[in-house]
């Protein structure tokens, strides 16, 4: 154990003296999450809608609350505005019933326009007692079990994204630093001392674990408090899942380094180990994807960690309900720790 602590202490000193790596660990993930947040939230919210004919005054007032309204003299002129992309849609009240013409190239814009029209219609109905009497009692009311009506797409992917960013940076860092240990000969030098491969691996987990914990706390605080991503579940329990994920990243990274000759070859593992996890591990909804994709997603530790994180942050579940996810993640870590110790034992005769 003292040997493992010596190794951990050396790693902490080493990274502590290397400001670049420290910055990479904390600032880079936060920058990535912030960028995603900006890009995903920066989508269209108030569309531009051209109007021809004479919509009811109350309707128009409601529409102006939710969209930028342009007046077009004729249907043709309105269509031209949409064609020139000066308007996202044309609401034509010169025909009966009124007709909505959309550009349609970007489905997300179409969806936003649809929502705005629907919202406006509902609001318009409520301003008119007669209309309300006709349809009001049959209008479904919407109630969300989790999240909020103002929730964005980013809130859904944020928990998994947080897990992924933590995984990615720790994986790269541990793969490269363990590789250096192999190529510079320091690994051989450690192995001729009385320290055992398992002590070495445990020491690595402790040393890097220290920074991984630091990084995780920073990212978690930033995502929840600065970006205001709702986290219903307990901060400490979310941290436990993130730290378990760090352990997997650490052990996978150092194990993978056994199959690389240099830093460039470490980067070649990104398409194999990292990219499929982004695609298959829950950032996208896979419920309706082919069976093989769903099976494949089950071999990635991030799938389990991501599921647990999402359930905790968005649906407020506790670790008690999600223990199986945690066990699987820790199982992956244990597997790679053992494989790693075995691969090191091969270096030493």
């Amino acid at each position: 154990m003292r040997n493992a602590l010596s190794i951990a202490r050396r790693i902490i000193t080493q990274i502590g003296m290397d400001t670049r790596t420290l910055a990479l660990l904390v600032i880079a993930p936060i920058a990535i999450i912030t960028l995603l947040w900006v890009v995903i939230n920066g989508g269209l919210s108030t569309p531009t809608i051209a109007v021809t004919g004479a919509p009811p005054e109350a309707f128009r007032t409601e529409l102006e609350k939710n969209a930028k309204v342009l007046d077009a003299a004729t249907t043709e002129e309105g269509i031209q505005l949409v064609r020139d992309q000066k308007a996202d849609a044309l609401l034509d009240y010169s025909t009966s019933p009124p007709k909505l013409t959309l550009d349609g190239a970007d489905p997300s814009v179409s969806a936003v326009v649809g929502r705005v029209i629907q919202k406006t219609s509902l609001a318009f109905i409520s301003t008119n007692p007669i209309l309300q009497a006709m349809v009001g009692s049959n209008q479904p009311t919407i109630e969300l079990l989790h999240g909020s009506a103002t929730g964005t797409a980013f809130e859904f992917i944020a928990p998994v994204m947080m897990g992924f960013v933590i995984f990615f940076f720790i994986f790269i860092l541990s793969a490269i630093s363990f590789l250096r240990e192999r190529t510079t000969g320091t690994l051989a030098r450690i192995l001729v001392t009385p320290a055992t491969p398992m002590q070495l691996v445990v020491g690595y987990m402790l040393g890097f674990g220290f920074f991984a914990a630091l990084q995780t706390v920073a990212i978690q605080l930033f995502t929840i408090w600065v970006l205001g991503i709702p986290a219903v579940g307990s901060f400490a329990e979310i941290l436990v899942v993130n730290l378990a994920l760090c352990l997997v990243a650490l052990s996978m990274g150092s194990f993978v380094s056994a199959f690389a000759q240099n830093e460039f070859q470490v980067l070649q593992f990104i398409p194999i180990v990292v990219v499929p996890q982004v695609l298959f591990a829950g950032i996208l909804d896979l419920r309706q994807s082919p069976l093989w994709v769903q099976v494949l997603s089950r071999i990635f530790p991030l799938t389990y960690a991501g599921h647990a994180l999402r359930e905790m942050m968005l649906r407020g579940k506790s670790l008690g309900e999600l223990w199986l996810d945690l066990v699987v993640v820790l199982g992956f870590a244990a597997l790679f720790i053992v494989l790693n110790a075995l691969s090191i034992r091969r270096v030493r005769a």
Partner: protein
Amino acid sequence: MSSMNVSVRDVTVRFEKRAALSGATLEIPPGSIVGLLGPSGAGKTTLIRCIAGLLRPQEGSVTVAGLPVPDRSLAARVGYMAQEDALYPDLTGLQNLRFFTSLYGVRGPAAREKMSAVFRLTRLEGEENKRVKNYSGGMRKRLSLAVALVHGPALLILDEPTVGIDPVLRAEFWDEFRKLRDAGTTLLLTTHVMDEADRCDRLALIFDGRVLAYDTPAEVCRAVGAKNTEEAFLTLRARTHDREAARA
């Protein structure tokens, strides 16, 4: 100090198809300086790695102090210095040395004492707190030797310990090697510098994964009728070539 005799018997190591060692045999008596001399690619480093326990031979056996290698109980009594520096460039000399010292189980005041002794020995006093990346090549080599020496090993395995070191320091290193030997340490080192070969107690000429000759430098020369080790080496090498040509 326990007697650290090394016994290498019929050791063969193959990398993929190529044999790096083919049936190498060597008996190293305790308390002596044994040099491995040979061109690059002859198998010196491979042999040394087998003795250090970093490589398991496909055939043959290696024992150190009667124990088959690798044996973890030997680790504390063996010092190993590889050709590459094998140091952490971001750490200071002291941090590097302290790390490896602690892995040998030497900690606290005992470690401080031993560390300052090897810093003195390798003329690195006053440089302890510089980062290794700011060290010169020679300083790194000296620190690397300091790491191999710090726990007071009874068997010291050094792969090209004097490459990149100036003649004055090299002479000092050799003084130190002799002092260590006189104190009972067994030293095994590789070199391709001929004048160093002459300073060894025993010399093994290695060529093509085989030990061509193994004796005192003077005896090696006499056996092949050469004036010096360099000539002896070239003669032996030519003979091996001829023999192989004849066989083919």
